[in-house]
């Protein structure tokens, strides 16, 4: 069977070789890079602009951004027909291609986040390593942990006041440098689509900007959501542990801290959401107003075939409903949870409607293609580019975050 045939249904006239070649994994790719960029921008709001209220979530989102980073690459690899050759993008980049910049931007960004994390957690590394060294009878696990943390200090054991201040300055500089790189990382994902002149739906110079705005929205939403979830787990844990350790924060302390952080962060979420929706609507109105050759087929895709996906799920459920949920005064944790889940759904659907919607019509403008998401995998292809492949991509960052949190505790008070 030809690649793409398993999930493409054709209607009316399409060119014989046309199939939905870019599937769920290419939806996941901008979604995941968007989360990376968004999480980083959120942490930079504290580090660079000194938004003090975001202090708690800043560390969290920085570590989470790092956990998401390797996963941004995963959907691309899973979608490649020759995944083992993926490294060629780094080795023989062909710079007229928008994808070729991936290796450079991605590794630059990775290095910035990694070094920023190192500066943020250096004190912790040194303290942990020293306390492990001081143990009278360390077992094998302690020795291993001691070695790990000693290596992580990279030989910089100075934790004097001056040295820590220097660290803070470095964090600030790195976070500042990271913002344009994070925006570029995601903006160029938008450029990959926006520059395809053969695709009438994708080709618009607004695409990178739209992608960046919705990326920040999704990144902040995911940070809030994960923050709420981890805080809930901590609350449960603290209930159990408080009997033995009275020094850990009480339930009420955790609750009020949580509510405060969520309320603050959701304000930034709203701001970026307004920007994202404005740009998307501008694009839609402009297309309708100019009505170039492709508008006939685009109109039937946007207003008829994909109406539910675009207007009901993306704009209605994913934008309008959470917008009001966040605007109504007295934001509760429960409402924030529902709101962020809906925002994430909205951004995911926006990616879906761009990637799949862009292939929903033939480049002959005379026919349509319908994408049927493979649910139960019957072959390697339907596993990789089906529901399960997407789920793998969605779950992996949380696993990485779990491991990272062991080394770089997100909630430890500095």
């Amino acid at each position: 069977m030809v690649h793409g045939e398993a999930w493409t249904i054709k209607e009316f006239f399409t060119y014989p070789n046309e199939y939905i070649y870019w599937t769920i994994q290419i939806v996941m790719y901008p979604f995941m890079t968007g989360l990376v960029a968004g999480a980083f921008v959120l942490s930079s709001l504290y580090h660079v602009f000194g938004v003090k209220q975001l202090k708690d979530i800043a560390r969290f989102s920085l570590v989470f951004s790092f956990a998401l980073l390797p996963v941004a690459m995963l959907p691309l690899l899973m979608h490649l027909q020759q995944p083992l050759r993926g490294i060629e993008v780094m080795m023989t980049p062909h710079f007229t291609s928008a994808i070729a910049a991936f290796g450079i931007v991605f590794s630059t960004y990775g290095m910035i986040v990694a070094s920023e994390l190192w500066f943020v957690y250096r004190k912790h590394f040194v303290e942990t390593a020293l306390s492990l060294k001081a143990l009278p009878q360390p077992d094998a696990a302690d020795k291993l942990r001691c070695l790990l943390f000693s290596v992580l200090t990279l030989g910089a054991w100075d934790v004097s006041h001056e040295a820590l201040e220097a660290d803070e300055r470095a964090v600030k500089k790195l976070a500042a440098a990271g913002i344009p790189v994070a925006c570029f990382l995601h903006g160029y994902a938008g450029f990959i689509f926006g520059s395809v002149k053969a695709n009438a739906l994708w080709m618009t110079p607004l695409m990178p900007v739209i992608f960046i705005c919705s990326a920040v929205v999704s990144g902040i939403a995911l940070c809030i959501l994960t923050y709420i979830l981890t805080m809930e787990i901590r609350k449960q844990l603290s209930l159990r542990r408080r009997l033995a350790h009275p020094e850990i924060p009480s339930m009420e302390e955790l609750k009020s801290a949580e509510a405060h952080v969520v309320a603050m962060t959701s304000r930034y979420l709203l701001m970026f959401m307004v920007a994202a929706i404005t740009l998307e609507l501008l694009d839609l109105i402009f297309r309708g107003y100019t009505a170039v050759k492709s508008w006939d087929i685009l109109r039937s895709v946007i207003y008829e075939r994909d109406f539910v996906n675009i207007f009901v799920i993306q704009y209605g459920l994913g934008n309008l409903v959470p917008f009001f949920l966040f605007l109504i005064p007295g934001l509760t944790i429960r409402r924030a949870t529902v709101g962020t889940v809906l925002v994430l759904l909205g951004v995911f659907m926006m990616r879906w409607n761009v990637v799949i919607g862009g292939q929903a019509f033939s480049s002959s403008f005379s026919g349509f293609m319908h994408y049927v998401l493979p649910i139960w995998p019957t072959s390697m292809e339907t596993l990789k580019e089906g529901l399960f492949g997407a789920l793998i991509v969605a779950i992996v960052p949380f696993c990485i975050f779990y491991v990272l949190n062991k080394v770089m505790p997100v909630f430890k008070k500095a």
Partner: protein
Amino acid sequence: MITRRSFCKKSLLIAGGLAVPLAALELFDPRKLLAEKDQKGPRWVFLVDTRKCVGCGFCVKGCKVENEVPYDANVTRTWVERYVVTKDGKTHIDSPKGARDGFPEKGIDIGHGKLEEIRDEEIEKAFFVPKLCNQCDNPPCVQVCPVGATYQTADGVVLVDRKWCIGCGYCIMGCPYGVRFFHPVYHVAEKCNFCYHRITKGMQTACVDSCAFGARRVGNLRDPEDPVTKVIMTERVNVLKEEYGTKPQVFYLGLSKEVK
């Protein structure tokens, strides 16, 4: 012990020293030298006379066999489209299996395995249009390939390196003509290459050889005596989707406005 100052100085010196021989590469660009010698090879172009095409599909068959594109796979390097324009102004188009078996059914294939029957008296005009890679002068597929696996030869033909293609599909997305697909066996991007292995040895392409009606011809645009060049230069030819700025090099005679 090396000081920081001397380290910086020495690294600058080494970098500068390396830059000089590297600059020589720019001075002696082999392609530039070749161009200066004015040894121009051919520029392969294609001429399709839609008025002669009967939609038999022999070209598609011939191409599939010659270029080892699996016969039953629903992809093809070249195909034939059937256009039926009815009196109500509607255009009905189809290309079942790329017209590998011609058009055995009179009804128009509208997908889902359904046929749309059109009565003879409703038909205003009907014709066939063969399609293949346009070997664009400004090929978007070459531009977007992230690893340079697809490239344009000096004689204008765009080729794919099967050993280097990573299978990302960006070229397939970038082609406005839909000529590219994934090869079902090699799992890399695949497309018509004007039977490069044949034309460079002075032979015709497989589709040209299979066409009993002379609807397809391949020629060299840099040879003014080439009969194909003469037609392109002197007659009213047209190209497909000029608005994309790809500068297609497959020329059509008798192209109608309905052709997509």
